[in-house]
């Protein structure tokens, strides 16, 4: 009985506190990216291998796309609607994400460099 009370009074709160602290640790880092003709701002973002990151991507003008196959990113970016993308890169390297929704003459130059350290 004493053992059960010990568990309830001491260990359980400690576990809850630990779990809450763990929740805070696991809250993914957020990176905001803006898409506009014909660039992403910022043009480069840096991630860490194994780190889960939340990308908040918004188009400022027309419909754009964001495509990066190694990170399984393949989405349209409708103006005014923020796309929330959660990624956990598994391999280091420098990758090029592109706009793959045709947006005008300089569409082919619209790139986002993703560095995974």
């Amino acid at each position: 009985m004493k053992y059960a009370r010990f568990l309830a009074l001491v260990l359980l709160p400690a576990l809850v506190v630990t779990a809450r602290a763990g929740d805070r640790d696991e809250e993914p880092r957020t990176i905001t990216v803006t898409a506009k003709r014909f660039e992403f701002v910022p043009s480069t973002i840096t991630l860490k291998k194994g780190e889960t990151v939340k990308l908040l991507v918004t188009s400022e003008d027309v419909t754009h796309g964001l495509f990066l196959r190694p990170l399984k990113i393949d989405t349209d970016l409708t103006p005014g609607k923020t796309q929330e993308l959660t990624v956990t890169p598994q391999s280091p390297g420098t990758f090029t994400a592109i706009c793959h929704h045709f947006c005008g003459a300089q569409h082919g130059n619209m790139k986002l460099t993703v560095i995974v350290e």
Partner: protein
Amino acid sequence: MKDVVDRRSFLKIAGTSIGIGALFHVAPLLGASANGRRIAAMLGKKNGEAPTPFSFVQLSDTHVGFSGPPNPLGTQAFEKAVDLINGLRERPDLVLFTGDLTHDSENPGEHADRMRLFQKIAGHLKVPLIKSVPGEHDAGLDGGKLFRDAFGETHYSFDHRGVHFIALDNVSLARPNVGPEQIAWLKKDLSRFPTTAPIVVFTHRPLFDLRPDWEWFTGDGDEVMNALAPYENVTVLYGHIHREHTHTEGHATHHAARSLIFAFPDPEAGAPKKPIPFDPQKPFENLGLRVVEEPGRRAAGNSSPRIEEVELTLREYAGTVGIQQLLKEGVSL
């Protein structure tokens, strides 16, 4: 009695390097021997129409309306290509344009003018048939409306001398996709043909993952190629990448034509995706406007393009496979 069919006597589409795209000879030897004629007759029986020799040209990425440092000469390369084709000793039956006929404009009226200028220049081609598909610069901003107004449907098919041609649109959805509706149409279109039918698909973007990070791919290209997989004679012609490229996978061989406005570098060489700079000393270099003369004719001052056969297409290979299947089915030649 079943004859042994020599690879070269069967059915061949050979690409010829004339430097302005690609010239394809279809079945040039079929009528040259009794054996070839028997093969043609049998294919006619199987496929509905016997292939007969003809040639066609693929041109791509003329970007009419483009103006900038990578090419300050505008439509000159396109006009030269038209002159070269008109000067060929063997007049092609058909010219296929694989997209980006025009450079896009924010002003629909200006873009329509560019399409009219394209039609005016292409109209000088002395060929019986001209067919085209849109590129993203033609159709990406308006879903293909202007293109359809000027040229008609963006996907369709037709038969020519025993070859089934399929035009696929992988740009009008704005994203690099063909889309489920068009893939359903493709499957229905193919369903009336036996697997031995010679098929030429022409489209703008590559239907395989050439360089996705350069947007050199089609998102649902695998679905298209799966629909084509049972067919033994498939050639896919595309543009978009502004350089020559050949890729074989399964029964299909894919060929990219050069651009007629500017060239992109080889991505495998580590270069960034930027047009190769314009060289005023060699204004058509890298565009494919290299007029190659036949060695024996150069001395005579004849500037006809050299007819140089290169291993550009699958016909010799796939045609042989096709005939093997017919033999297995017990069809006597």
